[in-house]
C-alpha cells in the first residue's frame, strides 16, 4: 500500500463526473485497494446529493430477493417428478408436512407394533386397530381448516377442488404409507404390505364421506367403527385373518367403490371449505 490517497479536489471531480479518463481510472484502481478512500467516495457521493440510485430502496429490494424461501426438499421433490411448481407449493404447505402429525401417527403405530412384538399375537389386534386407520386420520386432519390455517385461502382460490384434494391426499399418503409399511415389518408373521390396502381403503372411504360431511368427522367415525369391530371380534377370529386374501379383496373393492363415489360427487366437496 502506498501512501498515496485521492485528494479532495480529485475526489470531488470524480464524484461529480467531470474528471478525465486517466484521473477517473486512477481513482477507480485506487479505490479497489483502499478502504479509506472507498469510504470517502461513498460519503462524498451521498453528501453531494449526486447519488445515482436510491441505495436504501436497492437494499430493501436486495433483502426481499434473498429472503424468498428456498422450496422445501419435499416441494423440490414434487417439482422434480413433474408436478407444476404452483401445485407443488399448494401440496407442500399442507400442515401434515409440518411433521407434527406425522410424528404423532408414527409414534402411535410404533407403540402398537412394539406392544405386539413384546406381547405376542395376543396384542396384535391393537396394531390391527390402529395402523390401517392412521393414514386416513392424517389425511382428514390435513383437510381440517381448524388445524390448517393454509387451507382457508387455498380452498378459496379458483382451483379445481377435486384435483387439489387428490394431490394433497397422495402427498399425505406418500409420507404416511411408508411409515405403515415400515412398522408392519415389526409385526411377526405378516408381510408388511398387507397393511397398505386397508389403509388405502379407509382413506378412500373418508374422501367419499367428505362429500357429505366434514372429513375429520368422517375419519373419526370410520376409525372408531373399525376399532370397535376389531375389539369385538378379537376373540372370535385371529387378528391376522383380517389381513388374508379375501379380506384384502374386500378392501380393494371398498377402495375402488369409495373412490368412484368421491369422483362422481366431487363437486359436493364444500365440506372442505371453511364455515361461515
Amino acid at each position, binding site marked *: 500500500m502506498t501512501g498515496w490517497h485521492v485528494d479532495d479536489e480529485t475526489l470531488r*471531480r470524480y464524484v461529480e463526473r467531470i474528471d*478525465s479518463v486517466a484521473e477517473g481510472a486512477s481513482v477507480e484502481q485506487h479505490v479497489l485497494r483502499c478502504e479509506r478512500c472507498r469510504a470517502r467516495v461513498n460519503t462524498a457521493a451521498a453528501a453531494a446529493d449526486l447519488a445515482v440510485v436510491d441505495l436504501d430502496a436497492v*437494499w430493501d429490494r436486495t433483502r426481499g430477493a434473498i429472503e424468498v424461501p428456498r422450496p422445501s426438499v419435499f416441494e423440490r421433490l414434487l417439482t422434480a417428478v413433474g408436478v407444476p411448481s404452483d401445485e407443488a407449493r399448494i401440496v407442500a404447505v399442507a400442515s401434515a408436512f409440518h411433521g407434527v402429525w406425522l410424528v404423532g401417527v408414527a409414534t402411535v403405530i410404533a407403540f402398537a407394533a412394539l406392544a405386539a412384538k413384546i406381547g405376542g399375537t395376543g396384542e396384535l389386534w391393537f396394531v390391527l386397530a390402529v395402523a390401517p386407520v392412521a393414514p386416513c386420520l392424517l389425511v382428514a386432519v390435513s383437510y381440517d381448516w381448524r388445524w390448517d390455517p393454509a387451507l382457508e385461502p387455498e380452498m378459496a382460490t379458483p382451483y379445481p377442488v377435486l384435483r387439489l384434494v387428490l394431490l394433497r391426499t397422495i402427498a399425505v399418503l406418500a409420507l404416511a404409507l411408508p411409515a405403515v409399511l415400515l412398522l408392519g415389518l415389526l409385526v411377526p408373521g405378516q408381510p408388511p404390505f398387507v397393511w397398505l390396502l386397508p389403509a388405502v381403503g379407509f382413506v378412500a372411504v373418508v374422501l367419499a364421506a367428505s362429500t357429505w360431511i366434514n372429513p375429520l368427522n368422517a375419519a373419526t367415525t370410520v376409525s372408531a367403527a373399525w376399532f370397535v369391530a376389531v375389539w369385538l371380534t378379537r376373540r372370535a377370529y385371529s387378528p391376522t385373518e383380517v389381513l388374508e386374501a379375501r379380506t384384502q379383496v374386500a378392501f380393494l373393492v371398498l377402495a375402488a367403490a369409495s373412490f368412484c363415489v368421491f369422483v362422481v360427487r366431487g363437486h359436493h366437496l364444500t365440506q372442505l371449505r371453511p364455515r361461515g
Partner: protein
Amino acid sequence: MEGPPSDATLLVGVAERDIGAFRTLYERHAGWLALRLARRCNDSELVADAVQDTFVAMWQKPRSFRGDGDVAAWLWGIAIRRLVSRIRRRTDIAAAFGISETVPAAEDEVLLSVEYGDLGAALARLSPEMRAVIQAVVLDGLSAKEAAQLLNVPVSSVKTRLFRARAQLRATLAEGLS
C-alpha cells in the same frame, strides 16, 4: 486491538447467513459500486438492478471469493458483468459513459494534462468512442464481447476501435517524446 471486521471476515459471516455482516458489506460497497457503474451506464434503473444483482450474487455464493486480493475488486468484477447482462436484456438502452456526456471545463483540461503528463493528454485526445473502448477493455478488464454488450456496439467495432485507439496513443506518446 479489535478493529472493525475486514471485508473478508464479513464475507465469512455472509456464508454463515449473517444478515448483519451482509448489511455492513452493503454499506461499505454499494455506494462506490453504484457510482462507478453509473459512469458506464446512464440508466440509473439498470445501475440499481446491477447493484441488487451483485449483492444477491454475493449472498448466494459468498464462497466464490477465493480469498486472494480485495473483496472490493471481486465485487467490481461481479458488478460490471451483472451490468453487462442487464444491458443485454435491454438492448435498446443507450449505454454511454459519464465522461462523454459531461465536458470538462477548459482549465480543468489544462490542469489535467499537466498533472498526468503525456498519457493523460494522449487519452484526452481520443474520441469518446475510442476512450470508451479503452476504458472497458483496458481499465475494466472486460472481454471484447462484454465490452460490445456494455457499449451496445458490434464486437468487430470494439476490436477496430481498440486497435485504432492503441495506434493513436502510441503515436501521440511518441510525438511527445521526440
